[in-house]
């Protein structure tokens, strides 16, 4: 399903949570929606899932507006970092509700995942630890098989082995049942290789949307003697630069080949670093 965002804004008083944001997500990809706290990620996901109205602009999914749109809401599953389920419900009842709501729901998968994460169907939501609640969120998020599945920091409190298990299961299932998966997370290093495309938000605006492979191909980390680095950077868009005792190190948009020919040491820029520097408050570059 194609998601089209056009001049989307959301304001709370003087605060522009989203400021005329436009982009398109073609669908059937794993997207990384990145940005610092307060960049507007959660606001966007709330509007996308039809739970909030934009102040202006619009968002359409296959041409339709998602707000309180029954056909669309059953195609979108949003798993947040907390409070996905009412505390008084038993896990068994949570599954029932999801099964009723999502037409593609896979009960068998849900039960397998509960077992994988050691969750008992008879347990009440309020008795679960933070990590267990997250595991339940992941279980329902995956088993809903919604054409658009959104995970907003879904693994708070989960330990590293459980997170790894989640990535394994997600990749496996995504290949069997391709769908749009939007990931918003601060644990970028762990998941960046799973992203097919990355969107970076800063203060309610999109600062970057690019396929991960393109991004790796067109950003470089260069280092070498200061004058050589200077010469290379002359016509480049610089992301970040540091100088130390006659040598320089810089992240920039540029080709690996040109940098190598300029006699510089060349590496790639990890997505995590890119996110940090593109969303810093102010930098000379």
């Amino acid at each position, binding site marked *: 399903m194609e998601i089209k965002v056009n001049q989307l804004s959301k304001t709370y008083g003087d605060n522009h949570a989203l400021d005329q944001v436009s982009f398109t997500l073609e669908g059937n*990809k*794993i997207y990384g929606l990145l940005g610092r706290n307060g960049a507007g990620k959660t606001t966007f996901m709330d509007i996308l899932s039809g739970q909030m109205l934009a102040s202006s602009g619009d968002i359409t999914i296959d041409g339709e507006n998602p707000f309180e749109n029954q056909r669309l809401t059953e195609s979108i599953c949003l798993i947040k970092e907390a409070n996905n389920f009412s505390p008084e419900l038993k896990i068994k009842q949570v599954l029932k509700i999801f099964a009723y709501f999502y037409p593609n729901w896979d009960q068998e998968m849900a039960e397998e995942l509960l077992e994988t994460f050691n969750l008992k169907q008879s347990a009440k939501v309020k008795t679960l630890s933070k990590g267990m609640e997250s595991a339940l969120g992941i279980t329902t998020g995956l088993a809903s098989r919604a054409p658009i599945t959104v995970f907003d920091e879904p693994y708070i409190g989960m330990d590293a082995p459980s997170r*790894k298990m989640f*990535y*394994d299961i997600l*990749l*496996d299932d*995504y*290949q069997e049942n391709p769908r749009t998966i939007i990931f918003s997370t601060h644990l970028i*290093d762990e998941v*960046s*290789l*799973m*992203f*097919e495309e990355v969107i970076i938000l800063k203060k309610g605006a999109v600062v970057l949307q690019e396929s*991960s*492979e393109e991004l*790796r*191909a067109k950003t470089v*980390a260069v280092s070498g003697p200061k004058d050589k680095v200077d010469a290379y950077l002359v016509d480049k868009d610089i992301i970040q630069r540091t100088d130390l005792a006659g040598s320089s190190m810089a992240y920039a948009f540029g080709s690996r080949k040109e940098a190598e020919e300029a*006699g510089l040491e060349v*590496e*790639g*820029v*990890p*997505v995590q670093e890119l996110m940090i520097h593109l969303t810093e408050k102010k930098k000379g570059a």
Partner: protein
Amino acid sequence: MKKELDENKPIFLQIKEQIEDSIIDGSLNGGERAPSTNEFAKFYQINPATAGKGINELVLEGILIKKRGVGMFVTEEAKSIVIEKRKQTFYENYLLPMKREAEKLEMDRQELINMLNREDEAHGN
């Protein structure tokens, strides 16, 4: 097979190189089945489209062949194609960096040649 990928290099190229390396060193021979996109994606926890891109390029170059419903297979010509390709990039990947480093160290051509000869003697080539 490497245990982890280098996040600093294009991922699809690394997938490609890994298969090529296995073909060159004989761990994957002509006619044998190569790991699938899914297997790579799961093993390295990477996006399947990325793994697929590396594999598709190998298909285009005639190194792998897709057999519908069965998987990817190494072609009979694979090894000679890879070797030919690697020879062409040998200059860029090995000779050029070596020359650059030698220049930095102010080594002249004769010194380089001497070094190569010494290496040959030491390892009996």
